[in-house]
C-alpha cells in the first residue's frame, strides 16, 4: 500500500507573527520556518503504517517555494521514502483549492491507496485542503483523526468531534486528516538526517501542470487584533471575589 502525505512549510509555531507594514500579510523575513505541526503528525502516522508492514512506500509532497525542499528533507529524515516538490514563484499565494488541484494531478499519476494530511495549516488556519482533495478525487474522507486502523480495504478512523469522538469507516482509497492526538511525531536522528539527503526528491513547476491556480481571494487588509486593556492584580482570593461581585459576575 502506498501512502502519500502532503506537507507545508509554515512559520514555526513558536514564533509570534507580526503583521507586515503594508497590510498584505505577515512578515516572513528572517522568521524561522518549520513543517506544519499537523503535517508532522501525518508523516509520523504514515511511517508507523510502514513500520507495521501495512504501507510499502511513504511519498511526501510539498507545494511552495524552493525552500520547501527543506521540509521534504525533514519528512524523509523522519522516515519517508521519497519526495516531490511542486515549485511556485516566491510570494505567490496558493490557496487550499489550488493545492488540492495540484495534489490531485500528482495522485492521478502516483495512485496512492491512502492520503494522510494535517487537519489544518497553522498559517491560514483554513482547515480545507484534505476535504477539498477528497471532493476532487471523489474519495471518502475521515477528518480530525485521533486513531487510524486499516482493515479489509477500509480505513477505520476515530475522529475528534464536538462533544466527543466518532468512529467511521471509509473505503480506500481515502483521505485522512490528522488531529493532535493521533500520535507524537519522532525526532529525526542525525544518521537519518544524513541519509535523507540521498533520498530521491523530484522537482516540478506548478506552471507545468494543467491546473488553474489563480487565487480566488484578494487580501484587502491584514491587521493586528485589538489589544485588551490592561487589567489589575489582586492580592487575595477575598479581593478577587469582591471584584467579581462588583462586576455582577458571581
Amino acid at each position, binding site marked *: 500500500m502506498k501512502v502519500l502525505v502532503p506537507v507545508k512549510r509554515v*512559520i514555526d*509555531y513558536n514564533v509570534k*507573527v507580526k503583521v507586515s507594514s503594508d497590510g498584505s500579510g*505577515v512578515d516572513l523575513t528572517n522568521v524561522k520556518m518549520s513543517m506544519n505541526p499537523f503535517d508532522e503528525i501525518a508523516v509520523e502516522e504514515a511511517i508507523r503504517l510502514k513500520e507495521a508492514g501495512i504501507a510499502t512506500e511513504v511519498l511526501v509532497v510539498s507545494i511552495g517555494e524552493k525552500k520547501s525542499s527543506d521540509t521534504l528533507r525533514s519528512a524523509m529524515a523522519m522516515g519517508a521514502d521519497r519526495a516531490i516538490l511542486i515549485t511556485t514563484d516566491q510570494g505567490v499565494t496558493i*490557496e*487550499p*483549492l489550488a493545492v488540492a488541484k495540484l495534489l490531485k494531478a500528482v495522485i492521478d499519476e502516483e495512485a496512492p491507496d491512502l492520503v494522510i494530511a494535517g487537519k489544518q495549516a*497553522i*498559517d491560514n*488556519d483554513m*482547515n*480545507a485542503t484534505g*476535504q*477539498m*482533495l*477528497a*471532493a*476532487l478525487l471523489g474519495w*471518502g*474522507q475521515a*477528518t480530525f483523526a485521533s486513531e487510524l486502523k486499516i482493515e479489509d480495504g477500509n480505513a*477505520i478512523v476515530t475522529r*475528534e*468531534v*464536538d*462533544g*466527543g*469522538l*466518532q*468512529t*467511521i*469507516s*471509509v*473505503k480506500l482509497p*481515502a483521505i485522512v486528516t490528522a*488531529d*493532535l492526538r493521533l500520535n507524537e511525531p519522532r525526532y529525526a536522528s542525525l544518521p537519518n538526517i544524513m541519509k535523507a539527503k540521498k533520498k530521491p526528491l523530484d522537482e516540478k513547476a506548478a506552471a507545468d501542470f494543467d491546473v488553474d491556480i489563480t487565487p*480566488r*481571494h*484578494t*487580501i*484587502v487588509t*491584514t*491587521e*493586528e*487584533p485589538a489589544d*485588551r486593556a*490592561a*487589567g*489589575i*492584580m*489582586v*492580592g*487575595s*482570593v477575598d479581593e*478577587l*471575589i469582591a471584584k*467579581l461581585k462588583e462586576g455582577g*459576575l*458571581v
Partner: protein
Amino acid sequence: MAVLCLAEVVGGALVLDATSKAVTGSAQLGDVTLLVCGPATAAEEAAKISGVSKVLLADDAAYANGLAENIAGLITGLSGDFSHITAASTSIAKNVLPRVAALLDVMILSDVIEVIDADTFKRPIYAGNALQTVKTSDAIKVLTFRTATLELAADGGSATVEAAAGAGDAGLSSHISDAVVSSDRPELTSAGVVVSGGRGVGSEDDFALITSLADKLGGAVGASRAAVDSGFAANDLQVGQTGKVVAPDLYVAIGISGAIQHLAGMKDSKVIVAINKDEEAPIFQVADFGLVADLFSAVPEMIEKL
C-alpha cells in the same frame, strides 16, 4: 441574495445555540433557508428561529451522522438557488463545507468573524494573531461563522418546512459509533462562564478542582492544550487555536501559562481571571483580574467562599 445555512444537528437533535447564531450571521447576507439533516422534530424547532424564511428537511439516514460525502452531495444539489452557503464553525461544518466548496469549484472562508459585504469577510489567521479581510471572486460564497461573538437570533419565527432530497448514500463511508460525553454542565462554546485548567493543575485527579469550581459557578469546563496533552482532560474540552474558541462573560484560567495558541481561543471573553503561581506568566497580560497564588490553596478557598 439568498443564503443556504446548514443547521447543526447532533444525534437527531437540533443544536439551537450554534444554529441560531449561524442564522444571525447569515441574515446579514440575505434571505436565510435553513437545511436540517435530521428528523422532523429538529426541523420544527429550527422553523421557530426568527429570521429563517424556509426550512429544508432532509430526513434520511444517509445524512444523520454528519458523513461529509453524503451531506456535501445533498448541499451541492440544492446550491443552484443560493449566493451563499453557510454554517456555524462546528466539527460537522468544518468537515462538510470545504468538500461542498471544492465540488462547486470555489474556495472556502473558514471561521468568519465579520461580514463586510456580500463578497468581503474578516477572519483570523495565525491562531488569531492577525485578522485578515479578504474579498472573494467566487460566484457562490461558502463560509463558516465563528459563533463565539455572534448573538442568538430571537425565537418566535414560523418558517415553512419543506422536504428536500438528494442522492443519499454515496457509498464511500459509513458510521460505526459515537462516544459522546454526556454532561449536565453547560456546553463549552455557549456557556456564560468557563473555568479552564492548564498544566499547573498537575494531574487528572486534581483536575476535579477545576470541575468543582466550574460547578460552583454554573459554568463549563475547559482545558489548555498542555493539560489535554498531559492527559488531565479530554480533547473536546480544549480551548485554543486547535480546540474550541469561546467568548463567555467570565473566563477563569487556572494554572494556565497563556501560550499564544490558548489565548487565540479565549481572548474575546468579556472578563478574564487568571490564577497562576508564576507572576511572569503571559496569561496575566490579557487578564482583567490576576492573582498570583498556588492554585491548590486558592481554588479550594474560592469554592468555599463563593
